[in-house]
């Protein structure tokens, strides 16, 4: 005599389905059956945020140095860039890049059109520019916080300004920026939800699609909310760990 192998997954599933059908006002089974869509959304959100953060950093670092060195004109231009993109909603910036630029034939005939014609890339560009504007101020704050003594020490041992910047000041400043960069990554994740407004299926986009397909009021949004919460929780954990590691030398050695 053999007993059927217990299948906890199937049991759990049956429980959820029965609960959804009988008692709950929310159809959990429907949400769970659409997990591939939410997974695609999660992937798009993560990719877009990572893209925006890293390319934003590439733009922001030189601009921050220009601002820190107070190079005339260039510093003011960088300041204007920061002011404009921090002072306006990301949603409007993304609309401007997606719908606004596309109305000009010059843009459509240019080689950039291969990128600009894709909604995903338009989001990526908007996130990059927006995040760059915020990161400039973060890095500048980090540079300002580098103690004068460290810079003087670098000059004293004969480093050129460029060398001192690369080898000493930037690493020191970047470490100081880490907590702020962590915040920025969570803010950009929050901002990334507007990708769903540009036809991209991100986490929120998957939720909206589910709602639209089944004429649901909010179940899709609820699912998206849960995913975002889990994501932010995970990111916070990772950031805390990274921060502990890189700032180790600043903590007293009492552990």
């Amino acid at each position, binding site marked *: 005599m053999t007993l059927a192998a217990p299948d906890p997954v199937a049991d759990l599933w049956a429980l959820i389905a029965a609960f959804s059908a009988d008692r709950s006002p929310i159809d959990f089974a429907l949400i769970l059956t659409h997990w591939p869509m939410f997974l695609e959304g999660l992937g798009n959100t993560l990719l877009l945020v990572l893209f925006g953060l890293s390319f934003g950093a590439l733009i922001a670092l030189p601009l921050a140095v220009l601002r820190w060195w107070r190079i005339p004109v260039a510093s003011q231009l960088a300041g204007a860039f920061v002011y404009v993109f921090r002072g306006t909603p990301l949603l409007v910036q993304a609309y401007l890049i997606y719908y606004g630029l596309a109305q000009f034939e010059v843009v459509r005939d240019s080689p950039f059109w291969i990128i600009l014609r894709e909604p995903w890339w338009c989001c990526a560009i908007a996130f990059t520019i927006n995040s760059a504007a915020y990161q400039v101020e973060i890095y500048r704050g980090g540079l300002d916080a580098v103690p004068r003594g460290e810079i003087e020490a670098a000059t004293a041992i004969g480093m050129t300004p460029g060398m001192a910047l690369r080898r000493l000041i930037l690493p020191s400043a970047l470490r100081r920026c880490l907590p702020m960069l962590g915040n920025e990554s969570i803010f950009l994740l929050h901002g990334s939800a507007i990708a769903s*407004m540009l036809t991209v299926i991100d986490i929120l986009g998957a939720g909206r699609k589910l*709602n639209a397909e089944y*004429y649901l*009021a909010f179940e899709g949004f609820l699912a998206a909310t849960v995913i975002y919460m889990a994501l932010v929780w995970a990111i916070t954990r990772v950031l805390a760990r990274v921060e502990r590691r890189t700032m180790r030398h600043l903590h007293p050695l009492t552990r």
Partner: protein
Amino acid sequence: MLNRRSLFASAAALLTLLGAQAQAEGVLRVAISTGYPPFNVLNADGTFGGFDVDYALLLCERMQKTCEFTDIEWDGIIPGLLANRYDVIIASMGITEERKQQITFSNPYYQTPSTVIARADAGLTADAAGLAGRTIGVQRATGHECYIQREWGEADMRSYPTTDEAYLDLLAGRIDAVLVDSIPGQDWLASDPAHAVFAPVGGDIYDTECFGAGTGVGLRQGETELLDALNAAIQLTREDGSYVALSERYFGRDIYGQ
């Protein structure tokens, strides 16, 4: 010390005062979704216009009610109705079986087929083979989404909040074609000389499953009194000639069908 109960009471009163109004007698709250010319549009002076809006006004007049319009994103229009944000949807909504599971419909007030619009010189054919690998734009949560998923599974479908946005991307060349109702499609083609390079491809498409049996007024299930009143009002507009006059004004013909 502030009494906690009185604090709650005043908060509730404030909420009521600010925005939570009870439904006034003699008011019909109508949901529309702008960005859908010539049926639902926002005019430059902030008023709403289009065939649906004007027809809603006709119906309200016949029902001796005042129309109160709410503009809402299309994919939130049925949830909004179910959540009692308004009483009816008069926004060119096709009477499909799928929607009937959620809401109920009046008798149809117009019937038109759908059509694919693409660049005339693109050599596109409106069938599964011709659209395979092509990008085709539709409005989100419409019968057009249903039709493409069922018939042209190989096509790359892109869903927009409104058809106007799909047109913008068609113009920009981001998408190869759009699937739209034929009247808005014709209206868009005629609205600007720059649109002359585009044309309907493959003729009219009829499909009861996806596009529905005509266009009706949507309302919550179980509201039989309102349903009867709406159907009577639609009948009246047919009999007194006001429907034909309105339809002629917009389209130069009667779009009621049958």
